[in-house]
């Protein structure tokens, strides 16, 4: 058994240290680079805690939509092909609901604060 701390907790400690100890003293030219690094670690941290549940939900919805088996990637390619060839009803609420849910789940990992789309 691998000892704790868990990966997420370790990464959160890294984030705390970068923000509290390094960010305030870093020179101006490197600041932007450090902010990118912090952003990337935050994405990984959220993905570690969210991705299993999210991908399982997406997977189950894809199976219901397509009535076929496969990996999440294969099923996404199959759904893309069906939309492209108009062999799935593009107005079906099952499809539209799936697109919105899946995108929201991805956004919860990539950019949970992103709200701007609500004004579009």
């Amino acid at each position, binding site marked *: 058994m691998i000892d704790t701390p868990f990966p997420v907790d370790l990464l959160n400690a890294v984030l705390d240290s970068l923000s509290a100890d390094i960010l305030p003293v870093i020179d101006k030219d490197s600041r932007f680079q450090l902010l990118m690094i912090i952003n990337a670690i935050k994405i990984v941290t959220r993905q570690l805690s969210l991705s299993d549940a999210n991908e399982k939900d997406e997977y189950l919805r894809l199976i219901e939509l397509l009535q076929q088996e496969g990996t999440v990637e294969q099923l996404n390619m199959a759904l893309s092909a069906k939309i492209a060839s108009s062999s799935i009803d593009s107005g079906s609420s099952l499809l539209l609901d799936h697109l919105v849910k899946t*995108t929201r789940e991805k956004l919860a990992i990539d950019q949970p604060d992103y709200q701007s789309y609500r004004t579009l």
Partner: protein
Amino acid sequence: MVGSIAMMEIRAVQARLDAIKNNILPGSESVTDIKKITAGASKNTYKFSVKVASQKKTYILRVAEDKSIEHESTINIKMEANILAVAKLANVKVPEVSYILEDHDGLGEGYIMGYVAGETIPRKILRDKKFEKTRLLLAAQYGQQLATIHTIDSGKIEDLPASNLLQTLARFRSDIDSYAPSSPVFEYAYLWLVTNQPQTTERQCFVHGDFRNGNVMVGEQGIEAVLDWELCHKGDPMEDLAWLMLNPWRFGNVDSPVGGVGREEDLFNAYEAAGGVLDIDRVRYWQIACTLRWGLTCSFARYIFNTGAEKKLEHALIARRISETEIDLLRLLRVDKS
């Protein structure tokens, strides 16, 4: 690469600029204050001054660089210099090209232009107190500049790429197949674009292609220069208006659709007042097309990251903005109604 200054030291660049100083400005005595500019994505850009009769004039040297994530660009650096010159003739605010490099100058391919002072960093333009009054002017100035850009004589630019709507859609198709083969949302948006093409006749003229917050040099009086012409082409002018209003260029100022600084009607009114012909339905259509285009640029960054030898953090983070473009598309298409 022979003749490239990518690896050249500042001193060597200085010596070579010194050799052509009279081509840049007749009567020049010396080249001073040479400095590599690191702002933005441009790697091979230098700022320097030329001394003439106890006065100093400042210039920018731009030389060809490695391909950026702008995978659509086919504009080479010599064309870029020509475009700036033609744009200047049309009264667009652009830097003046002073000299186009020759092979024997030993600096690679590129050109020298007059330096324009100002700010390009969107967050500063959108937030700094010193631009408080400027921000009120920008939406109208954007409209005025775009109308002027759309009067540029595209016939004067040799090899200018052209793209009508059908060609743009064909490009989307091949980009989806190459860089985003498993995105049902992009596929959905693409299908919508194919089946909902505007009924009005497409006008074709010179289009900037990347006119937005970040690619415009701003001073306290407003626009000082329009930059970044690498994506210009002959196409539908409404594409430029739509691109400027894309969500990502608002940088959080979500209620100001025009680059995070202004209202749509200020942009549209100024565009029409300066002679532009507005077609709002086509602008709306292009807002969706441009969002997909930005999503595909993010997908291309992911492709570069996943397949390239060099793993750049910048590309990885752009890849993780794909979901942002997908939710924007779902919203614009009224699939997401929350």
